[in-house]
């Protein structure tokens, strides 16, 4: 059907790979170009900005004496919850559900983890650590479950219900640590720390005398939650492609009608999917408390991990490996933002602008549109890559899933 001659030299596997990667990579490049123009237009130097971002994110070409190992460590700390919440957004996507409540579910998990970690602070680690992590997962699952049940029984759109649950969680958190039962002392906005047994170990020993890469090893905050996050990505891929539940999730996402004919309970699948997604988000919140902060603080009032997760899930094309890669990108951006602010005097908020531009680009498939206009790169219109789930009409059953990449 295409009269255009195709280059014969490239094997199909590479062509498929390059096609699959063209959209996410193209979107990132496009975002950086537009963001750079914005910096330029406001009188900044985009190269200095991106140089500092690269230093802060990956420890490359640092000019102000930053320690590369520390920068990479900081990035990994950001990456950990992004992977887990990315999974929490990507899984419902496959079922045609849009979970923008990962943030609220994360907060619910963090709250539960803290509450349990304080209440049973004297218990030993082998008992308490599983308790706080599972407690966080249950809390997150319940938080998302509200949206799942309302969707499955009433048809209430999960986007709206999860937004509402986000705000309920945020205000509940404020209540708890500002004048509420978890407040450490009057005038503070934090909780008391969780017991030592509830904490995840850091990868490097927490020792001020041990010098690694020129700094005391206690400054490297990478914690064993990294393994949990990587396991979450692996479980996601396994669940989706190797289990009957994963089949049901994909079936519901493709066509609820067809799934019903195949004997899949659509309602049950929707509820179970949301419960699992919430458990992942809750786990992310629990690992943040158990691994990084050890108590609830006002930092969580302005936490945006659950929203970043949407970009992670979309950019990662809903695959386990893709989610990890996208999480590394956004983790590096967030870690690099503060260095960019300090070194290049460009507001770290540029990171959010870049993130939004990436979202626009993926959602609107700008890369595809540009390819269509470049002779030789254009593909027949039938081959448009619909990685995005088509928009679900509010409160009806129809919703189609992303195609597999």
């Amino acid at each position, binding site marked *: 059907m295409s009269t255009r001659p195709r280059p014969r030299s490239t094997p199909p596997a590479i062509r498929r790979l390059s096609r699959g990667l063209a959209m996410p990579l193209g979107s990132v490049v496009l975002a950086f170009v537009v963001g750079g123009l914005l910096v330029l237009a406001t009188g900044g130097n985009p190269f200095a900005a991106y140089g500092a971002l690269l230093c802060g994110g990956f420890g490359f070409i640092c000019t102000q004496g930053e320690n590369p190992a520390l920068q990479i460590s900081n990035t990994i700390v950001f990456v950990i919850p992004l992977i887990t919440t990315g999974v929490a957004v990507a899984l419902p996507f496959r079922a045609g559900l849009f979970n923008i409540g990962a943030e609220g579910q994360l907060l619910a998990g963090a709250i539960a983890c803290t509450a349990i970690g304080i209440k049973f602070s004297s218990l030993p680690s082998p008992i308490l650590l599983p308790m706080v992590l599972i407690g966080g997962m249950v809390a997150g699952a319940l938080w998302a479950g509200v949206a799942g049940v309302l969707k499955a029984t009433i048809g*209430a759109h999960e986007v709206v*219900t999860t937004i509402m649950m986000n*705000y309920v969680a945020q*205000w509940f958190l404020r209540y708890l640590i500002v004048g509420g039962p978890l407040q450490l002392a009057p005038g503070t906005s934090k909780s008391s720390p969780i017991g030592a047994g509830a904490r995840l170990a850091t990868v490097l020993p927490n020792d001020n005398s041990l010098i690694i890469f020129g700094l005391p090893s206690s400054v490297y905050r990478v914690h064993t939650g990294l393994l949990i996050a990587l396991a979450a990505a692996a479980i996601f891929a396994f669940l989706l492609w190797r289990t009957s539940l994963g089949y049901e999730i994909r079936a519901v996402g493709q066509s609820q009608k067809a799934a019903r004919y195949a004997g899949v309970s659509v309602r049950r699948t929707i509820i179970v999917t949301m419960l699992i997604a919430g458990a992942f988000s809750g786990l992310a919140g629990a690992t943040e408390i158990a691994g990084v902060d050890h108590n609830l603080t006002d930092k969580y009032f302005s936490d945006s991990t659950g929203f970043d997760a949407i970009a992670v899930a979309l950019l990662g094309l809903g695959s386990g490996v893709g989610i990890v890669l996208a999480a590394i990108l956004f983790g590096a951006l967030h870690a690099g933002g503060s260095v960019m602010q300090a070194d290049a005097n460009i507001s770290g*908020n540029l990171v959010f602008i870049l993130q939004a531009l990436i979202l626009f680009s993926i959602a609107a*498939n700008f890369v595809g549109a540009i390819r269509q206009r470049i002779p030789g790169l254009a593909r027949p219109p039938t081959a448009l890559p619909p990685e995005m789930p088509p928009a679900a009409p509010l*409160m009806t059953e129809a919703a189609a899933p992303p195609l597999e990449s």
Partner: protein
Amino acid sequence: MTPVTDILHLLFTANLWQATLAAAVLLLLPALGGVISERSGVVNIAMEGMMLTGAFFGVVADLAWHNPLAATGVAMLAGALMATVHAVVSIQFRADQIVSGIAINIFAAGLTVFLVNRIYGLQDVGHVGQSELIPYINVPGLDQIPFFGKVIFQQNVIVYVALALLVLTHIVLFRTRLGLRIRAVGEHPQAADTAGINVFAIRYGAVITSGLLSGLSGAFLAIGISNTFVPNMTGGRGYIALAAVIFGKWTPGGAFIACLIFGLGQAIYDNNSIIHVSPYLLSMLPYLLTLVVLAGVVGRSTPPAADGLPYVPGSE
């Protein structure tokens, strides 16, 4: 005193209801935009970002020109510009309207703080002088009515404008040919297209209108109620407006009632020195109420049939 008697006492003061109406209008403007946009079939969760952009550029313009009217215009234009991005991405490029909306909100939050740093450095944005704020006007005569005079006729200009826009939106949507077209496009774009209605034009108009209204609300917040810009100063109001749209079952009047309920919550929150309930628990109420409404307790809330679906000409 118990919290209940505290609140009951508060409910009989005109001050509270005056504050309620102002807080409600702040939500009503974006909510009206949301009703119009969603009636035309474009899901709009970007009110938050459009409002924030409006608030920022309103302050920038007012600081530069010392003219609240011009600044309000700039704020509306800024909101409309954001809306245009949402429209191009979601109507022209048929992007997922929810992703586009989220992107707008993230973009607005990032852009405003980025520009604060670029324009004003690390310092404060600065404060707009009292005489350069959008004025409060007492309606002569009517403002002397006991209780209601204070509540309704001693308000900011924007409040009167918003109430007029409420009536106007209702009339346009349900009593004019244009309104019929908007609703037709939102219910069944294919049929509307067949009948000769320009689906894209209607949707563009509706989304941009919602941007103008959200920008106006941002101006009211930044240079009417407040007198400066602080990062993320909208604080989720755009999302409460979205809740009001659903709560009000996609009608202007219903949305207004929802805004009044949420505004009352806000006014009680602002009077938290008198009551003894945690204001943070009260702040959860609008969202919990919306969940209750969505759960079907107050009858089903059904959106326009084609809400959220990009229109592909020639599709079935």
